[in-house]
């Protein structure tokens, strides 16, 4: 497994992804820096974080996960390389798992960049309270965790389609409804694509829609959808490899 991960890293090293990763954190940074605040003190940090979370988590984060997945599968699709990869003495499931781990690793880097962006923006504004690393960290981690089911589905789509655009289209089809779902008290807790946003926005700040839903529900939805997507993906991939 470690070898597989290492090989994914080598493939990624020279890819375009490193230019693209900072885009969302940068945007969030600008938004957090420039947005108008209502409150002061520790509340101010909450608001800044909420702004950053909205900018990043509403559309960008779910869409970026799709781009990661498509990018990781692109190398193999482009050079007929699936045959080569699967002819090695590795189990197809391990290959799949390594790709998924790579997607989540990229997502982790992205979230770390977000933490830096938010902290930086807040500091630049000269907020009085010290940087609430705990809150920011939890937000980033929660967002990361919520990406698991999305990554699993996108990996399935990216292995199934040869073009780069098709899995992205799938991603868009599921992500765009966020615009309506996020505000719905009834549906938001159940919709996997809006979970990253819900997980990242600190609770009790903008008390509208479903943002105050319990952690348990969130985890159940995230965990459940992750299992469903992962199993479907694995089944498809392993069957195709044979």
């Amino acid at each position, binding site marked *: 497994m470690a070898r597989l991960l290492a090989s994914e890293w080598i493939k990624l090293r020279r890819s375009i992804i490193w230019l693209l990763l900072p885009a969302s954190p940068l945007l969030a940074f600008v938004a957090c820096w420039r947005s108008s605040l209502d409150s002061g003190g520790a509340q101010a940090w909450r608001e800044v974080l909420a702004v950053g979370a909205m900018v990043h988590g509403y559309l960008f984060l779910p869409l970026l996960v799709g*781009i990661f997945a498509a990018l990781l599968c692109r190398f193999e699709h482009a050079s007929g390389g699936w045959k080569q990869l699967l002819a090695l003495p590795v189990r197809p499931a391990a290959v799949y798992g390594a790709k998924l781990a790579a997607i989540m690793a990229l997502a982790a880097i992205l979230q770390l960049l977000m933490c830096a962006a938010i902290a930086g923006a807040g500091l630049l504004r000269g907020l009085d309270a010290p940087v609430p690393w705990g809150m920011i960290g939890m937000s980033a981690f929660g967002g990361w965790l919520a990406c698991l089911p999305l990554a699993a589905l996108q990996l399935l789509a990216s292995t199934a389609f040869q073009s*780069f*655009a098709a899995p992205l289209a799938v991603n868009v089809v599921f992500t765009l409804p966020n615009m309506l779902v996020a505000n719905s008290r009834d549906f938001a807790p159940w919709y996997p694509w809006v979970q990253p946003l819900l997980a990242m926005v600190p609770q009790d700040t903008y008390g509208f829609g479903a943002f105050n839903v319990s952690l348990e529900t969130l985890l159940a939805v995230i965990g459940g959808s992750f299992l469903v997507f992962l199993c479907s993906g694995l089944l498809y991939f392993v069957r195709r490899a044979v």
Partner: protein
Amino acid sequence: MIGRMLSVELLKIRRKLLWMLAALGPVGVIGLQAVNYGLRYDYLMKLYGDSPWEGLLRQVGSLMLPALFIGLALVASMSAGIEHQAGAWKQLLALPVTRLQVFGGKVMLSLLLLLSSCTLLLLLTLGMGLLLGFDPQVPWAEIVRQSYLPYLAALPFIALQSWLSIVMANQALPLTVGTLGLVLSMFSVLMPAWMPWGWPDRAVRSADALQAAGSGLALGVLVLLIGYAHFARKDVS
């Protein structure tokens, strides 16, 4: 010649998902709105009082804009992707067709598909309003305006995405740029009037909608010229 290029492009996308994508956008938007109205009918009717058509247009418009932004990137990418996948650039450009015709053909395909999507959206919006029992006195001017002006205003992006997807085999960059465009467009209210990401939104809502559409048309043509100039000089790999 234009007709010939277009007929060839249409032949090439036979049995490809690209057709579906062009239809999926409007169907998806209206579908979501159907759910929206289905669940919140009373609230929405109260909110929009005596101008239900305007309300519907506003709701549709809010979903249509992001769909347009990402849709145009996907269409441009898939259209160019067909040639990249087939390794067809070297064959195409070794034929007695000018680079302008090749570039133009691809751009025209995207423009045509997106125009069809906008038209489909218009028809579906109309259908939905009538089905919901809105006043049969349809505000034609508004509907047509909302369906086509954002398309014109988004022309610079159609041009940009087409250019990027044609000159690069790796679609990761064009599609990420497209995603970035999508997200930026969501913040159009914060943008000054000269930033293109806000123009489609302006074309829907504000008083200077025609101006936004016109700027889009002008900038779009400019980006197309730049893109073509680059493509014309490029060596084919």
